[in-house]
């Protein structure tokens, strides 16, 4: 029974691997809700460049970020997909270049990340995974999301429209 989740240190994690620029990244399957084809994104003014805008996800407004821009790397094009990640109440779409596969590794095979130069990346990277001839960067979705949330604060909060406002 190769699929039984083993106890203790041999615990397995399942990951979704995707391409972003020239690097390969991974996030945990448990944080992925679904993967969408690229759709038209309604542009969002007065927001950071990586905040691409919003899309209609079955009646809900979903904010979509360009993950490559968020991580300050050049996108490599590709067929572009939106990975919908969810953490608690927060849900966000992340545009990536190419989603390659779901795979599993034992939790112990995640190595601490070597110090990366860009400080922006530091908290967002959980570790690295070495597979035969591949190196995947394991992203910490919680950190990516909180980094997305951090930018605001400068603008006013009173966003009510006049018509429905009864002072």
């Amino acid at each position, binding site marked *: 029974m190769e*699929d039984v*989740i083993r106890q203790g240190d041999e*615990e*397995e*994690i*399942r990951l979704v691997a995707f391409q972003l620029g020239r690097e390969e990244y991974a996030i*945990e*399957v*448990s944080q992925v*809700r*679904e993967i969408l084809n690229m759709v*038209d994104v*309604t*542009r*969002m*003014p*007065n*927001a950071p460049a990586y*905040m691409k805008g*919003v*899309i*209609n*996800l*079955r*009646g*809900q*407004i*979903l*904010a979509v970020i360009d993950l490559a821009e968020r991580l300050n790397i050049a996108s490599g094009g590709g067929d572009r997909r939106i990975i919908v990640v*969810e953490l608690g*109440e*927060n*849900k*966000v779409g992340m545009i990536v270049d190419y989603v390659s596969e*779901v795979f*599993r590794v034992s*939790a112990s095979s995640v190595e601490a990340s070597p110090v990366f130069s860009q400080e922006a990346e530091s908290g967002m990277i959980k570790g690295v995974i070495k597979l035969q001839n591949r190196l995947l960067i394991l992203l910490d979705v919680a950190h990516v999301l909180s980094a*997305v*949330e951090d930018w*605001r*604060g400068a*603008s*006013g*909060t*009173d*966003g*009510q*429209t*006049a*018509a*429905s*406002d*009864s*002072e």
Partner: protein
Amino acid sequence: MAEAREHLEALNRALLDFEKNPQNEDLLTEIFRSAHTLKGMSATMGYEGMTELAHEMENVLDGLRAEEIKPAPAVVDVLFRCFDTLAEMVRNIDERDVEGVDTAAALGEIRAVVEPAQPAGAPLTKKREKPAEPAALPLRPEAPGAPERPEIPQPAGAETHPGPDLSALLAAQPGARAYRVDIKLDSHCLLKSVRVFMVFKKLGQLGEIVQSEPSVEDLEDEKFEDQFQMLVISRKEAQELKSALMAISEIEAVRVGEVSPEEHEEAVARTATSPREKEREEGPAVPASPMKTQSVRVNIARLDKLMGLVGEMVINRTRLQEISERLQDKDLKETALFFARLVSDLQDEVMKTRMVPVEQIFNRFPRMVRDLARNKGKEVDFAIEGREIELDRTILDEISDPLMHLLRNAVDHGAEDPATRQMLGKPARCQISLRARRDRDQVSIEVSDDGPGIDIARVFELALQTGLVSPEEARSPGLDALLKILTHPGFSSREEVSGVSGRGVGLDAVKSKVESLGGSLQLWTEESVGSTFAMKLPLTLAIIEALLVASRGEVYALPMGTVRETVMIDPFSVRRVRGREVILVREETIPLLDLAAMFGLNGNGTSEAVPVVICEIGRRSVGITVEELLGRQEIVITPLGPFLKGIKGVSGATILGNGQVALILDVPSFLD
């Protein structure tokens, strides 16, 4: 026809109550009266089909009153069927002035109820006699899309039909032997009925199935744990049958033993005497009197117009207050304040005119739950609380499908079959309730059952195996995490599967819908005690009238309350005052903003006249240059969510008819 509909409604309620209290003569009288009135009305108006059907219903009801016909569930079913036919006719007459329904089927059924009652003997022996071969197998495949029609079930106890005559069957097939085949499915098997279908199909190729226990119907409806038994006639060896069956997935064990006709007969004799007690509780007789409320009909368009006017008043209220502040006149100030309060109250009241009691959609659920339960062979008591609670009509329209899904789930998974319930020491009838209640500024709509509860450990086990939760999360299984798994698109069945379970919206679709209305879905469940799904909804939706405009390929919405007028402006008439662009409209100098430039979209200088929307809040105005005016529309304000809250210039978003998202402009921020 409104009157006909009232009588139909009364008839429907009375029938539902009658089913619970078949001994209640008052109800019977009420049903009879409604049917009689309908007959009279349709006869007067010359609708023959309706008259005839209502007449036949009267006959059956007469028989019931005289106790010549027993109020068996099947009889009530037929009455319901007739009621459906009548309702359809009334609808048709309403819409196109014709009955438009072939009554032959309904007439045939209802006459069949009366006729066997005339000669002495058991009423309703309209037993669905299966064809000579007891196993008309493989299982009847229900063509998807075919209307789900509950068939008349056999009277209780009828399934203890005598076993097939084995010796005769064996004599007809020289060289064949009879086998008793026991099958045990993997206890984690999903879609058990399909597994059974595969077993039947395989055995059908190797021989002939002459009997099954539980019955084919029960197997199809998955009314068995994980074991079933068949009597098979085949020329093959027992071992051959066994290995063929073991080759099917999710079959945990197979036992094949030869039986002689004598042994079989003995077995039949043993099981032939198991009368089943039909348990019908006699609840308190609650005659359903249709509630009468004092009301007038108002065209919805009127209400919407009223809403718009109130919106304008709200704007002017602010303006009036500003003026009174400036003039410092005590009387004016007082009046303005009083006026402001009045406008607020008026706005509240007008919002309330959009509110309708949940009853409007709840009323059709008793029937739906009843039919579902009958179909699944479950005994369910369905209770509704809080019919009078009110919700915005748009919200109410939107939650109808999700509610149906939750109720269907409750019947499917939240109600054990009567036998299981008795074994567990629960009352035979499952309690399913639909409850609406006010919870401060929210309305909570809850669907509860007292069924087995959700097997949390099992759900987490599945989710862990499929990677939907991480091992860490699986270590502390909580209700929130449970709901998250259940509403994962990969876990719940998918939305598009309509026609299969009616409108197969999965739990993920229920959650999406509730959240898109600004509400939330909650879950409570306890093993063997039951489950409750609660939708927490806002009382009213934020609906506003808006002007839709386009700029650089994007659509934006401007709340009508802030829009004063729209004008076409020739680019050469734009002036500059202290570095700002302004335009002159009837001697008034109004600052001009270019939407595209403001939002950092590439401007393309044009020399043609462009539309400008003049917005006004209080005394201050601003002109906004756009590319195109698309028109006025009612829009639902959808929140932007945590990541985009507080973005400058945007107050929310709305989803347009084509599914695209349009941003709602925050006009006050343009005036700063």
